[in-house]
């Protein structure tokens, strides 16, 4: 395990714009070889960050989508007993070699990869309360033991671990201490303009201005349950472009509002606000 050469710095990619804070956090994680924990509103590009890091540094990206039923063990390896039983029954393959039935999980795969990889542990807060604790040792030492074979899987190159969380559950302190933390802010209008430009090059400037203005006004509505975020704006502009809309005004017949607002109540409350000609602002 050689430390990353200090010259490796993350500066964002062509399609993923960053700012100093995020770059500093990523570079800390790279240099100190600690997991990077990213939080932020949904749709601010937490998951895309891992892809951007992988792309910028030329590493492969492994993804581990965490679900409510995911156990820490699943990320390390799975011992496929059923397959082995079947093989023993039908005489396929060598059932004496238990190693053939050990399947590496995403974490195990990242450790045993011949080169440095980027491992994304997506939505870590979806799993059980104890899930992060169960991974402490593995993330710290970057190694684990397969109990069935007593083999040790140790990382040849410490993977770059990016962990995202939507804050559904609090994470344990011991886990937090081991991570570099970054909270992705909601982009300001200027950065958002650049993000839009990156995703929709050649977009009519007037339309972009109007769309952004409407978008931030909508975000300013206090009554919204789920405020629209970056990814929704990008989608919305894509729809507007595809439909050839060229003029926007924030009023009751805003086109394709469904792309921005995902909750029934929000659509209703926006409609009401315009219906009464009164706006509830932050």
């Amino acid at each position, binding site marked *: 395990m050689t430390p990353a050469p*200090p010259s490796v710095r993350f500066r964002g990619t062509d399609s993923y714009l960053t700012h*100093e*804070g995020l*770059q*500093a*956090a990523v*570079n*800390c*994680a790279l*240099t*100190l070889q*600690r997991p990077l*924990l990213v*939080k932020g509103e949904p749709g601010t590009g937490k998951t895309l960050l891992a892809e951007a890091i992988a792309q910028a540094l030329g590493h492969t990206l492994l993804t581990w989508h965490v679900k409510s039923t995911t156990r820490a063990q699943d990320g390390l390896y799975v011992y496929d*007993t*059923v397959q082995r*039983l*079947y093989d*023993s*029954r039908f005489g396929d393959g060598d059932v004496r070699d238990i190693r053939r039935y050990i399947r590496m999980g995403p974490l195990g795969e990242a450790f045993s990869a011949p080169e440095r990889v980027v491992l994304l542990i997506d939505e870590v807060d979806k799993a059980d*309360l104890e899930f992060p604790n169960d991974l402490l040792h593995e993330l710290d030492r970057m190694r684990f033991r397969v109990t069935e074979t007593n083999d040790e899987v140790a990382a040849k190159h410490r993977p770059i671990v990016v962990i995202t969380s939507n804050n559904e*559950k*609090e994470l*344990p*302190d011991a886990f*937090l*201490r*081991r*991570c*570099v*933390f*970054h*909270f992705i*802010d909601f982009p300001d209008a200027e950065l958002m303009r650049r993000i839009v430009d990156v995703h929709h090059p050649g977009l009519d400037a007037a339309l972009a201005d109007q769309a952004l203005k409407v978008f931030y006004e909508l975000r300013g509505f206090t009554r919204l349950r789920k405020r629209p975020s970056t990814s929704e704006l990008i989608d919305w502009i894509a729809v507007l472009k595809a439909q050839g809309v060229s003029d926007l005004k924030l009023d009751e017949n805003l086109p394709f509002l469904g792309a921005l607002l995902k909750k029934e109540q929000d659509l209703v409350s926006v409609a009401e606000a315009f219906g009464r000609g009164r706006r509830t602002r932050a």
Partner: protein
Amino acid sequence: MFLPFFYELRRRGVKVGAQEALALAGALKAGLHDSSLDGFYHVARALLVHSETQLDSFDQAFLSHFQGVETAGLELTQELMSWLEEARDRPRLTPEELALLEALDPEEIRRLFEERLREQKERHDGGNRWIGTGGTSPFGNNGFARGGMRVGGKAGGKQGMAMMQAGARRYAGYRDDLVLDTRQLAVALRKLRAFARDGAPDELDIDESISATARNAGELEVVTRPPRRPNTRVVLAMDVGGSMDPYAAVMSRLFSVASQATHFKELRIYYFHNCVYGKLYATPQLTGGMTVPELVAQVGRHHKLVMVGDASMAPYELAIRTDAEGRYKADGQEGLTWLMQLAQHFERNVWLNPEPMGSWRSGSIAMIAQVFPMFSLTVEGLGEAVAHLTRGRTVKGAAARR
């Protein structure tokens, strides 16, 4: 070198420790901060802060430690304006300069100043040019010299950026001192879970399969079993109103943790006021719900009963006689009897009391503690209560340990 800053952070509730200090030292040694305070701000924030609720505290600590003038950024415009007023009287300004000064509105000045700051940052490597040291700029740069010094301190433009950033306090909205550690409570409650195999058999029982296959002379025999499911059933009854008002915050935290817990097979939440008089209510406004005899008939002995309340009342209130609907009746049961009826039905029961333990020796608390094993409503007490609930049968009446 940064140790005082660490203690400043701890004082403000950002729990940094040796691990963070070492990490920061490592990052600085690797030169991640690019030898600038601005870079240092970002690196330190990434390494020392672990939750967005602490970002605001971090910004404040950063400001007070590295500058000590929290409001410098905000008062800047005011400061500049007042000085510019003063500058007008200076004889060495040419009439042209004076005219220009007056032409600028505060917004404009601020914009120019920020522009200047940004510009300065880019050129900073060249030397230690401070903002406005030249003082020759047509828009009255001497004014900026003072403002700049105040903001930037010793190191100039770059420092100004970090200060501006920290000074903006953009994370104030994420501060959430109210959400105290619900995780601790959740973890304590979690120990209450117990599992039972229940439902459709759709999980492979490896050991059974292997032995069945062996018995079957190698012919594969797959044995399945029902998956483990949570099997804890809990009845939670909370005292509301009156003397419980001071504890509303801790009660609502307990409630939110309990209702979010997914590891109970069944959770019933009831409310009562002061003491149970025959009826447990479904809402904190004491409506709905069911009577104690109904509850006892509906739920089994193996439900775990958790009573929460301060158990503090006038002794006569324990002796009020009511019927099962909560109406006063001379031939009804006393409040204490209703409590005893609950305690006798449920094999495992506890009373959580938010009152400090020192006051439990006397009055109605002592009487109720004879009926229910009483624990304090703290993370620690909750842990003990849960341990008590999961232990085997208890001898009723004699269970009051404290």
